[in-house]
């Protein structure tokens, strides 16, 4: 097809060269895909056949019952875990998007005294690894009586604890011309209106990226729920997966089926919003973990 990068010298055997290109791409694809394929294959095997060596690569016969067994496992309410994960993910993400954009609006578009100082403070909190916050946060939540509730996994995100998102949105807001909100004698309500009716509607790309990153990080979070919750009723999916393993053995088929069920909504999000996703990584260099 001749779509070579213009800098490359014309290659005399374009067919061979393209064949090599595809061979390399497929090789990389196979390496990336094998573990995934293995996950799917295991989830569809007859219980018991997952211990055969050499392993059967393709399940014979294909059974779907592992999925049903995984969600109806006695003592492990899969749907309750799912509900907890959904509640945390939605509530925390809503808080993150609303608060981060509101705060970012203040930093980006209002020239108040002390703004630069507080912005540097905000940036410096980025250097604080989450793990370091864990112990003092645990003690704080214990004092507040929030341990073994979902509050520690939601409330802080309504207060902009993820400074990185504030920073990201602020950078975006600054690229929007100031004309609209520079009228000197506007009152507070007018500013809120501008934030809500003018700025937010045209900030789709950055808000989309923040939403995706936030959903991913809360849905996949393991350490937070592990530390702040104890009771079975509050378990998230990420925590619940652990209980397919026991001292007597692991139900690999069910575990893989449950993993795929946990992955499914994320996958759907990824495919429907791939554009925002990739652009978000370009904006940040992070994948939201």
């Amino acid at each position, binding site marked *: *097809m001749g*779509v070579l*990068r213009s*800098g*490359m010298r014309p290659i005399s055997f374009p067919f061979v060269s393209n064949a090599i290109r*595809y061979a390399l*791409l497929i090789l*990389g694809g196979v390496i990336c*895909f094998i*573990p995934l394929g*293995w*996950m799917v294959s295991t989830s569809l095997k007859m219980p018991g056949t997952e*211990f*055969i*060596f050499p*392993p059967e690569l393709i399940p014979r016969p294909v059974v779907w019952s592992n999925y049903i067994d995984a969600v109806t496992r006695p003592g492990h309410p899969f749907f309750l875990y799912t509900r907890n994960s959904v509640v945390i993910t939605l509530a925390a993400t809503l808080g993150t998007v609303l*608060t981060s954009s*509101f*705060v970012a609006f203040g*930093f980006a578009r*209002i*020239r*108040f*005294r002390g703004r630069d100082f*507080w912005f540097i*403070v905000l940036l410096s909190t980025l*250097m*604080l*690894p989450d*793990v*370091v*916050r*864990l*112990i003092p946060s*645990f003690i*704080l939540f*214990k004092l507040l009586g929030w341990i073994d509730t979902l509050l520690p996994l939601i409330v*802080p995100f*309504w*207060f*902009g604890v993820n*400074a990185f998102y504030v920073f990201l949105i602020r950078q975006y807001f600054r690229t929007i011309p100031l004309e609209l909100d520079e009228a000197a004698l506007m*009152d*507070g309500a007018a500013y809120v209106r501008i934030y809500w009716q003018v700025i937010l509607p045209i900030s789709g790309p950055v808000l989309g990226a923040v939403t995706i990153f936030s959903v991913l990080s809360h*849905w996949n979070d*393991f*350490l937070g729920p592990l530390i702040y919750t104890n009771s079975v009723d509050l378990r998230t999916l990420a925590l619940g*997966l*652990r209980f397919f*393993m026991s001292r007597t053995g*692991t139900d690999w088929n069910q*575990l893989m089926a449950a*993993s795929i069920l946990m992955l499914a909504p*994320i996958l759907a999000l990824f495919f429907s919003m*791939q554009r925002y996703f990739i652009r978000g*990584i*370009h904006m940040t*260099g*992070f*994948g939201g973990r």
Partner: protein
Amino acid sequence: MKMASIQSMLGSRTQLRRDILGYMFIAPWLVGFIVFTAGPMIGLVYLAFTRYPVLSPPTFNGLDNLERMVGDRFFTISLWNTAYFTFLGVPAQVVWALMLALLLNMRVHGVNVFRTLYYLPTIIPGVASVFLWMYIFNPDYGLANYILSLFGIPGQAWLWDPELSKPSLIIMELWRVGTMMVVFLAGLQGVPSSLYDAAAIDGAGMFAQFRHVTVPMITPLIFFNLVVGIISSFQIFTAAYIATQGGPVHTTLFYVLFVYRHAFENLRMGYASLLAWVLFFIILVFTIVQFRMARLWVFYEVE
């Protein structure tokens, strides 16, 4: 009244109005910062000098925690394990991510399908990925040993072999380099083709072009991926907590797992607070060192 003073009065009232509005907008973050960040971090400084078994209030014990840490064999072991995992694993991730990005940067039809495929493992929840790899690495019936057997290589114990436990985890992480890969891909696409033209005129082949055009142009991204990779690698927890529980013979006792055990299993919050501070300073030092070193070898395009 003179015109100027009226104006300045108006001006200062406008400024005051702006101040009030500004603080109104940043208030949620400011409150959150004081309650959820600054307050707890100040508390953490104090707790590092206390004995705090959680069930009873903290009591000041001076430098006891520091003394304990210096003599703690597991402190050293966990630091070594984390350093091993990071300094072998992160460069490997960067190289692998760059290789994948170079493949994806080839101009062939259908390359977008491969982009999605290469990125897919990265969105898998960390917990699910750990379980998957535990199964793949199973010594008795795992896929990894099956693949080795195809080449006539005897099966390994992988995560359960003290020699191989850390390399196994490194392999596991290599599977999920999608974010680094996308960053590289963006960089590769930004290299102006005129540079390749010039290199080709000078007679540079594929490898020479890579060495003298591509690499210098993307060094800022190599550097960025290294910094971010090291910082996140230092915080490895889930894999060691679930798959190996720090074993075999403490070979996967990573630093955060070590801190976690003291804080939430042994209930030594005071000691754990000190350990958390040490982690903070280690990460800070590496960040600064990397930024300084970057000057020696990072090529920034002159605008």
